[in-house]
C-alpha cells in the first residue's frame, strides 16, 4: 500500500507541477522568514558572547573617585562572593568631555581614556583588530574601539587630537581594537586605551582620582543578585556599567530586525497554511471521482489522508532546507558588518537550534494542515463519487450572488464581482492575504523611509535640529567671542551652545544606582528643535527632562523630583518633561546650562549646534564658517552621516526589502493559486461563456477583474491601515531602544507608487495564471 501511496503522490506532483512549486516556494519563504527571525534573535548574542568570554570581559564596571571609595574594600567584598569569577585591579581613567579632533574635524563624543595595564591580560583584554599586534599601546599611542574608528574612518597610523586643558594632545592611533563593552557605537561615552602611566599627559597627577574596577561573574544570570547584595551591604557612591546595557546596546538594531522578521513570519506561516489548505481543497474537488475510484480499489480513509500528508511532507522536505539556506545567507549578509566590528572574520554562528525550531514549526504546520484538509477526501463515498463525479450539492443558496446587471461597466468587470461573491469564504481569505501583502509593503516602504529620512526628523530621534555641529578650541577662541561673531552671520537662524555631562542617579536611600549621560543646553531648548513626549524642556537651574528609558526604569514622571550626583555634587532636580532618544537606549537627561553654572560658575559650553537659514547649502556654509573662524573651531559631520547610522539604516532597509519581496512573492503565489483553482472550479461556466461567444481574452479578463477588485479593496483598506498602524507596530519593536514613539515619516509618493506596483504585479500574476482558460473546451458541455 505504501508503494501505491507513493505512486499517487508522484502522480500528483507530476500533474500539478506549477501549483506544487508555488506552495513549495511559500513553504520555503515561511521557513526563511521564521528561521531568520529566530536566527537573528537567538544567534546575535553568540558572536558577542564568544568575544566577550574570549577577552574575559567584566560583567560589572565600577567607576569611582578613589578619594571617596576604598577600592580594596570593594574588591575584597566582591572576591568573597561565590558568584564572582575575578575582580580586576583598579585602572585609572579620565573622562574627555571635549570633542576629539581628527583631520580638523570634530568628533563629538565623550571618551573614557583608560590605562591599559598588565592586569588587562587577565581580565578585560582588548583584541587588536587593525594595527600593530602589541600587548600594550606604546607611549604617545592610543587604541580606539573599532566602532569609533570605523564610524569616523580613522585608521592605524592616523593622529587624533585629544583636548587637554587649553590645547590638544596629539596621539597616534596605533591600533583599532575590539572592546566588547563599547562595541555598539551607540553608547556615549566610549572608551579608548593608552599605556600605563601616560594619563598625566592629559591631566595633572593630583587630579587623577578616577578608578575603574571590573568584576567578572561566573554566570551572567547572577549579576542582579550580586549587585543587589552589594547595594544592600555596601554604601557605594560611584557609578557602574552592567552587562545587560552594553550587551543589549550591541544587539539593539538586530533585535529590532529579528523581531520585525519574526512577527511577519507568523503572517507568512498563516499564508502558507492558507495556500496548502486551498490547494488541497481544490485538488479534492477536481479529483473527487479519482479518490472515489481509489477508495473502491481498497484505499482506506487513513491511506487517503496519508497521500496528502506525505505529499506535503515531501514538499516541505525539499523546500524547508531551501528556505533555511536562504535564511543562512540573509543572516550572514545582515551580520557581516556586525561581526566585523567585533573582530570575527568567519561566521561561526550556531544556527542549529533556530533552524531546527523553524523546520519543526513549518513542517508541523504543513503536516497538520494537510492532515486536517485531507480528512475531507477521506470522507468521500466511493459509489457516489464514481456515479456523480462530484460532491453532493449543498442546499441551494436562497439568495443568489450579486450580479450588477444594471451597471454599464465592461461585462468581465461585472462577472469579476459576481465570481468574488460565489465563494465568499475563499474571497475573504484571499482578501486577507492581499491585505497583509499591501500592509507589509506599506510598512516596509514607510519604515524604510523613516530611517532614510532620519536627517529630516532628527528631533523625533532625540537629536537637535542643527544643520552644523561644531566646537571651539579652548585657548584659541572664547565662548563669548564666538557667540558674538556667529550671531552676526545672516545665514544663521539659531545657535545652541551645549555640552555633555555624566550624572549618577541616586536611590531614595541615597545610593547610586546608575550612571547616565546627557547634555546641557545654554539657551531656549525649544529653539534647538528638540521635542518632548510629555511635558516641557527645562529652562531653569533646578529643572531637568529625562529620557523615556530612565523615566520608566525609575518610575519618574513630570512633576516628580530626581536626586543625582553631577559635577561632584548631589543635586535634586524637578522633572519637567520626558523625551525619547535613540542613543544610549533611552537612558539620559537634558539640563538647562544654568544648572551646570549653578554648580560650576566658570562653566562655558564648548560645543554648538547651528541652524542655518532655509535655502542655504549646508555643505557650502560649513566651508564658509570654517574659513571664517580659521583654526579656532572644528566642524563635525552630522549624525546621519556617521557609519554607525548609515549601517543601521542599511541593515534595516535590507531587512525591510527582504520582507517586501517575500510578501510580493506571497501575493503572486496567492493570486496564481486562486486563479488556478478558479479555472478548475468554474471550468463549466467558462465553457458556457465560451459557447456564448466569450473570447479567451474576455474569459481571462473575468478572472483578472476578479483579482483587480480584490486588489483595489485591499489597497483601499490596506494603504490607510498600513500608514496608520505601521508606526504603532514599529514603536512596539523599538520600545527597548528608547523609541516609544517611532519617528515615522510617511513616504506619500512612495506609498502612492505602491498602488501601480501592486496592481501591476497582481494583474500580471492573474493574467499569466489564467492563460489556461484558453484551454477550456466547450466539449465538456456536451453529453455524448
Amino acid at each position, binding site marked *: 500500500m505504501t508503494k501505491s501511496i507513493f505512486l499517487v503522490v508522484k502522480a500528483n506532483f507530476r500533474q500539478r507541477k506549477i501549483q506544487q512549486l508555488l506552495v513549495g516556494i511559500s513553504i520555503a519563504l515561511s521557513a526563511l522568514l521564521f528561521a531568520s527571525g529566530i536566527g537573528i534573535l537567538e544567534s546575535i548574542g553568540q558572536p558577542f558572547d564568544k568575544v566577550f568570554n574570549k577577552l574575559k570581559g567584566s560583567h560589572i564596571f565600577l567607576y569611582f573617585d578613589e578619594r571617596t571609595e576604598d577600592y580594596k574594600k570593594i574588591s575584597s567584598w566582591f572576591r568573597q562572593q561565590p558568584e564572582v569569577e575575578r575582580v580586576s585591579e583598579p585602572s585609572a581613567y579620565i573622562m574627555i568631555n571635549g570633542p576629539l579632533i581628527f583631520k580638523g574635524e570634530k568628533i563629538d563624543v565623550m571618551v573614557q581614556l583608560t590605562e591599559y595595564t598588565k592586569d588587562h591580560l587577565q581580565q578585560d583584554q582588548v583584541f587588536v583588530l587593525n594595527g600593530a599586534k602589541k600587548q600594550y599601546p606604546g607611549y604617545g599611542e592610543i587604541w580606539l574601539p573599532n566602532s569609533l574608528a570605523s564610524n569616523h574612518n580613522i585608521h592605524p597610523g592616523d593622529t587624533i587630537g585629544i583636548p587637554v586643558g587649553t590645547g590638544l594632545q596629539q596621539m597616534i592611533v596605533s591600533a583599532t581594537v575590539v572592546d566588547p563593552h563599547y562595541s555598539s557605537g551607540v553608547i556615549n561615552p566610549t572608551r579608548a586605551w593608552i599605556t600605563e602611566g601616560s594619563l598625566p599627559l592629559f591631566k595633572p597627577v593630583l587630579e587623577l582620582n578616577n578608578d575603574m574596577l571590573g568584576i567578572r561573574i561566573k554566570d551572567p544570570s547572577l549579576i542582579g543578585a550580586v549587585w543587589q547584595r552589594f547595594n544592600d551591604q555596601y554604601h557605594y557612591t560611584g557609578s557602574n556599567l552592567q552587562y545587560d546595557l552594553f550587551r543589549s546596546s550591541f544587539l539593539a538594531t538586530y533585535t529590532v530586525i529579528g523581531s520585525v522578521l519574526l512577527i511577519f513570519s507568523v503572517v507568512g506561516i498563516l499564508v502558507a497554511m492558507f495556500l496548502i489548505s486551498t490547494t488541497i481543497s481544490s485538488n479534492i474537488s477536481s479529483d473527487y471521482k479519482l479518490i472515489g475510484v481509489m477508495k473502491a480499489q481498497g484505499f482506506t480513509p487513513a491511506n487517503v489522508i496519508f497521500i496528502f500528508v506525505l505529499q506535503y511532507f515531501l514538499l516541505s522536505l525539499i523546500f524547508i532546507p531551501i528556505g533555511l539556506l536562504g535564511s543562512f545567507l540573509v543572516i550572514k549578509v545582515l551580520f557581516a558588518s556586525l561581526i566585523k566590528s567585533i573582530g570575527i572574520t568567519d561566521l561561526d554562528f550556531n544556527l542549529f537550534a533556530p533552524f531546527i525550531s523553524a523546520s519543526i514549526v513549518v513542517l508541523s504546520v504543513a503536516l497538520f494542515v494537510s492532515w486536517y484538509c485531507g480528512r475531507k477526501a477521506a470522507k468521500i463515498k466511493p459509489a457516489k463519487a464514481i456515479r456523480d463525479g462530484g460532491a453532493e450539492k449543498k442546499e*441551494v443558496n436562497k439568495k443568489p450572488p450579486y450580479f450588477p*446587471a444594471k451597471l454599464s461597466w465592461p461585462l468581465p468587470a461585472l462577472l469579476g464581482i459576481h*465570481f468574488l461573491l460565489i465563494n465568499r469564504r475563499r474571497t475573504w481569505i484571499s482578501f486577507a492575504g492581499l491585505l497583509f501583502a499591501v500592509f507589509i509593503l506599506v510598512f516596509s516602504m514607510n519604515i524604510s523611509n523613516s530611517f532614510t529620512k532620519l536627517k529630516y526628523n532628527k528631533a523625533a530621534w532625540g537629536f537637535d535640529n542643527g544643520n552644523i555641529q561644531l566646537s571651539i578650541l579652548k585657548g584659541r577662541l572664547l565662548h563669548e567671542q564666538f557667540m558674538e561673531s556667529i550671531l552676526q552671520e545672516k545665514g544663521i537662524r539659531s545657535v545652541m551652545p551645549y555640552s555633555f555631562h555624566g550624572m549618577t542617579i541616586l536611590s531614595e536611600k541615597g545610593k547610586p544606582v546608575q550612571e547616565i549621560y546627557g547634555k546641557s543646553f545654554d539657551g531656549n531648548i525649544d529653539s534647538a528643535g528638540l521635542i518632548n513626549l510629555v511635558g516641557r524642556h527645562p529652562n531653569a537651574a533646578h529643572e531637568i527632562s529625562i529620557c523615556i528609558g530612565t523615566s520608566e526604569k525609575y518610575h519618574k514622571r513630570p512633576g516628580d523630583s530626581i536626586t543625582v550626583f553631577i559635577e561632584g555634587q548631589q543635586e535634586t532636580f524637578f522633572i519637567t518633561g520626558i523625551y525619547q532618544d535613540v542613543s544610549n537606549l533611552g537612558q539620559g537627561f537634558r539640563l538647562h546650562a544654568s544648572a551646570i553654572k549653578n554648580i560650576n560658575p566658570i562653566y562655558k559650553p564648548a560645543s554648538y549646534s547651528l541652524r542655518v537659514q532655509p535655502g542655504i547649502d549646508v555643505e557650502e556654509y560649513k566651508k564658509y564658517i570654517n574659513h571664517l573662524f580659521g583654526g579656532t573651531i572644528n566642524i563635525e559631520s552630522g549624525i546621519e552621516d556617521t557609519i554607525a547610522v548609515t549601517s543601521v539604516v542599511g541593515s534595516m532597509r535590507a531587512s525591510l526589502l527582504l520582507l517586501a519581496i517575500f510578501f510580493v512573492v506571497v501575493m503572486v503565489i496567492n493570486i496564481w493559486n486562486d486563479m488556478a483553482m478558479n479555472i478548475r472550479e468554474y471550468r463549466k*461556466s467558462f465553457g458556457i461563456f465560451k459557447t456564448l461567444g466569450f473570447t479567451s481574452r474576455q474569459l481571462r479578463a473575468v478572472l483578472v477583474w476578479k483579482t483587480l477588485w480584490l486588489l483595489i479593496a485591499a489597497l483601499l483598506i490596506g494603504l490607510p491601515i498600513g500608514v496608520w498602524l505601521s508606526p504603532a507596530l514599529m514603536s512596539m519593536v523599538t520600545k527597548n531602544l528608547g523609541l516609544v514613539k517611532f519617528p515615522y515619516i510617511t513616504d506619500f509618493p512612495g506609498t502612492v507608487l505602491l498602488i501601480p506596483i501592486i496592481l501591476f504585479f497582481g494583474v500580471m500574476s492573474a493574467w499569466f495564471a489564467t492563460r489556461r482558460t484558453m484551454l477550456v473546451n466547450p466539449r465538456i*458541455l456536451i*453529453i*455524448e
Partner: protein
Amino acid sequence: MIPPTIIRTENLRKVFKTGQSATGVINNLHCSIYKGEFTIIMGSSGSGKSTLLYLISGLENPTDGKIWLDTIPLHGRDEKNLALLRRDHVGFVFQDYNLVQSLTLEENILIAGYLGKKSRSQVREKAKELMETLGIGSLGKRLPSQVSGGEQQRFAIARALINNPHLLMADEPTGNLNSASSEKVLDCLAELNKAGQSIIMVTHDLKSACRGDRVLFLKDGEVMDSIAFDKSVTMEEREKILFSWLKEREW
C-alpha cells in the same frame, strides 16, 4: 425553388490525434442546411453528431474542408473570430441546459445579451420579451437550481435567442426532460421555427425528430442520407415513416 443555405460544408474532415494514432470522426462530409429549416441530425453513438455540431457552430476548426454559415466562411478563422461569430450568429441549447448555476435565470440570459451589440437596456427589454414568449416571465429572479428542468431549458432557449442568432443549435434539448416538459420545449422550438428561426437539433428521440422538417442521418462521419417531411403529414405518420426509414439504415 431551393432556399438559401444557412450551413454549407464541403469535404469537411475532422481527425483527432491521440499519440501516434489518428481517428477520423468526420470524413469528407458534404451537406447543406437551409435557412428557416428545422433540421434534425440523427445517428448512432460515435457517428460524429457532436463533432459536426462543434464544427458548424465554429467551436472547433476542421482538419480539412470548408464550412459556411450563411455566406460567412468559418474555416481558417482564428479562435477570437470564431468566438465573435458564435456570439453574433449562433445560439446554443444543450441537453443539460448548461446555465451558470450562480447566476439567476434572467442574468444567464443577460450575460449572453451583454456580449452582443445591443445596448444594455435593449438587452433587458429583449430578455423580458423572450421570457414572456416562452412562458417563464415570472421565474427570472430564481437560480437555475430552483426551477424544473423544462423551465431551465426554456431559459437556455431564451439565452440562445437573445442576440437574434441566424442559427439555433440544440443538442438533445429534451434528453434530460420528462415527456410533458419535452413537449413544451419542442413546442417552443417549433414556434420559433415557424417564426422563421433556422434550427439544427441533434436528437436520439424519434418523437422529437418528427418535429423537424428534415432529418440528416450520420454514419461514420458522413451524411448517409436525409429525409424531408411533407408539412401535411401528421406526427403519428411521421413517426412511422421515420422509424422505418431509420431501421433501413441500421439505426
